[in-house]
């Protein structure tokens, strides 16, 4: 579905690379999670897929077509994008924000309206209380959910998601993650998702790709990544969630003994 071939991006004519020689393939219906430190090039890689960033070298295929030969406007309307900074339009209501792409695609107003309500339900917002609010009348988590609804609105087959659940409380996050995973599986969505949350990565991903300083360190299923990390950096990265899980487990066990 998405093939990234030797993609590199430099903002300073080759003195440094935000992304360097990345080869990565995402299959149809696959949910790939991009992991890595802040500034390692995850957002840049994501933006190259829908041409918000043009690669300095290499090429990218989406549905077997070289994106550099595709009209970027049409390309982007067919790919849902959840922005790292959410990026809701402050002058539009929630409903208008969600309906942006359907309107660009000239959907009937009634179809837009129904779709908005459907997506607000899906993302755990109440159409009645929230649809006519402006973004500045929402909480950070609510805004993030509207951003997700907006990306899903025109039923894209590919979703690019840059830390989509970052501002949510753990319970809402868990619910929405599961809701999204179910949706992704029923609709057979192809997803590239960036996150800093290891647990999220392990729970949601079909496959995890780890980046460091613009370079792809390796990919693997959550199980492979946990069990046999292909690189010491990946092992180190996985050390934290593993240790935390162990601690939680032992606390649960000792708490049980105390009773």
């Amino acid at each position, binding site marked *: 579905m998405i093939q990234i071939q030797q993609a590199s991006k430099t903002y300073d004519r080759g003195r440094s690379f935000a992304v360097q020689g990345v080869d990565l393939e995402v299959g149809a219906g696959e949910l790939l999670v991009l992991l890595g430190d802040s500034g390692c090039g995850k957002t840049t890689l994501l*933006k190259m897929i*829908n041409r*918000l960033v043009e690669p300095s070298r290499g090429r990218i295929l989406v549905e077997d077509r070289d994106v550099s030969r595709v009209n970027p*406007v*049409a*390309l*982007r*309307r*067919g790919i849902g*994008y959840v*922005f790292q*900074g959410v*990026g*809701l*339009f*402050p*002058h539009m209501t929630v409903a208008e924000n969600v309906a*942006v*792409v359907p309107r*660009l695609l000239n959907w009937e107003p009634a179809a837009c309206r129904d779709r908005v309500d459907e997506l607000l339900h899906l993302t755990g917002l109440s159409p009645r209380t929230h649809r006519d609010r402006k973004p500045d009348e929402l909480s950070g988590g609510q805004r993030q959910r509207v951003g997700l609804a*907006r990306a899903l609105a025109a039923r894209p087959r590919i979703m690019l998601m840059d830390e989509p659940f970052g501002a949510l409380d753990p319970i809402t996050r868990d619910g929405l993650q599961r809701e999204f995973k179910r949706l992704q599986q029923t609709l057979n969505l192809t997803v590239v998702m960036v996150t800093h949350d290891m647990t999220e990565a392990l729970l949601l991903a079909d496959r995890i790709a780890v980046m460091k300083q613009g370079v792809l360190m390796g990919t693997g299923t959550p199980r492979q990544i946990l069990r046999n990390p292909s690189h010491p950096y990946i092992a180190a990265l996985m050390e934290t969630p593993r240790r935390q899980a162990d601690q939680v487990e032992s606390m649960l066990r000792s708490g049980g003994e105390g009773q």
Partner: protein
Amino acid sequence: MTESALADQLRLLPDYLGHHLTLTLVALSSGIAVCLPLAILVTRVKSLQWPVLTVASVAQTIPGLALLALMVPLLGRIGFLPAFIALLLYSMLPILRNTVTGILGVAPDILEAAEGLGMTSRQRLFRVELPLAAPVIIAGIRTATVWVVGSATLSTPVGATSLGNYIFSGLQTQNSTAVLVGCGAAAVLAIVLDQLIRLGELAVAGRSRTKGWLAGAGLLVILFSTLILQIPTAKGSAAVVVGAKPFTEQYVLAEAISQRLTQAGLRVENRSSMGSMILFDALTAGHVDCYVDYSGTIWANVMKRKDLPPRADLLEQMKAWLQREHQVRVLGTLGFENNYGLAVPRRKAEALKLASIRDLTGHAPQMTIGADFEFFVRPEWAALREAYRLDFRERRTFDPSLMYAAAREGVVDVISAYTTDGRIIEYDLSVLADPLQALPPYDAVLVLSPAAARRAELVRALEVFDGIIDDGTMRAANKRVDVDGESPAQSARFLLKAVGLSSPPDATEGADS
């Protein structure tokens, strides 16, 4: 008296307000039509930003009055067009700057979201950038509105009727009612337009139907009343345009001429308070049909002559020259001279034994001279200084209406007085003799544009003025305005009666006499 004085002024309001509104609305809407696309272009082509905004800023730093006056020679026209262009230029900076600031101020992550969702750059402009910049753009338009309504009062001296007619003539004739009415009307107009725009903005932002209807209705009322107010001046094209320079005598004479023309059944339009050279150029171009000028002014300023032949010779040569060079017809001399003369308070003249300008030479280095705006750049001043070797300690320029009081109160020692001004007697000034004849004679002459000279009924109505007003009568008429507080129209009636001419039945004064 004050009530009817106010009523007198308010009768002029529909005409002045109608012109003022037309000028303002046309200038503003053109300003918006030009500036919005230009500003958008500037945000797309960064290299244009500096030059466009700089030009607009420079236009803004030119004082309003100067900008308007500059348009006259640039366009070779008086009236609506130069006023419109100047006001358009004036409206540009706030609209341009705010639109550019507003668009460039849209947060980059929002622009990226618009792009990332698949908006074309056009859709981004209309669906994201302009709506988000709208409050800033509208603030710019509101600033421009207030500026343009205010600056439009300055279009009177370039021959466009506006609420400034109240202010300019009111200042010259010391009619504070007229000044107040003019300023008040302009202020109210500015506030009303500003608030209407604000209401429209609130209606759009808050999606309020009621506010939208209110703003729309307000705008319609304004547009409609502009049209209605314009109707009287819009019909018929052969109105006689009577010009006047900005001082009392000119207003009174223009009124007297207008009253005679009205009585002869002609339709009259007045262009008051125009600068001396602007007025002459307007006459030769046919934008003004007639006005009163002075032989010495034309001799020195238009013909640029430095020699001084005897009075009768000068008149003959001037008539022939005007006819030959400009096809301007001198219909006749009115009979009086309004000379430039140096005047000093009589008590000071007696104390210093000043009888002629020659006696002034020795005292000049300790004295301050006051004059109107034109005097020090006119050739007469150069001739005077040369002939009498005058070297004053300080020169000050005044509005003519304030100059005489400045002499009386000792703010200045000497002034360049007009010899027919009623305030010379009233303020006890004495005019010094000019034994060397450095100053030309200033016979008042009635001049007609080439087109006006061909209109027999117009010539017939004005021929009667030849030689009938003497110095004393003119001075008395001026004094009625400057000292007694009459309106120029009232004084013109007195003048016509004094020289045995009839004036049309009175509509304006019926109320108070």
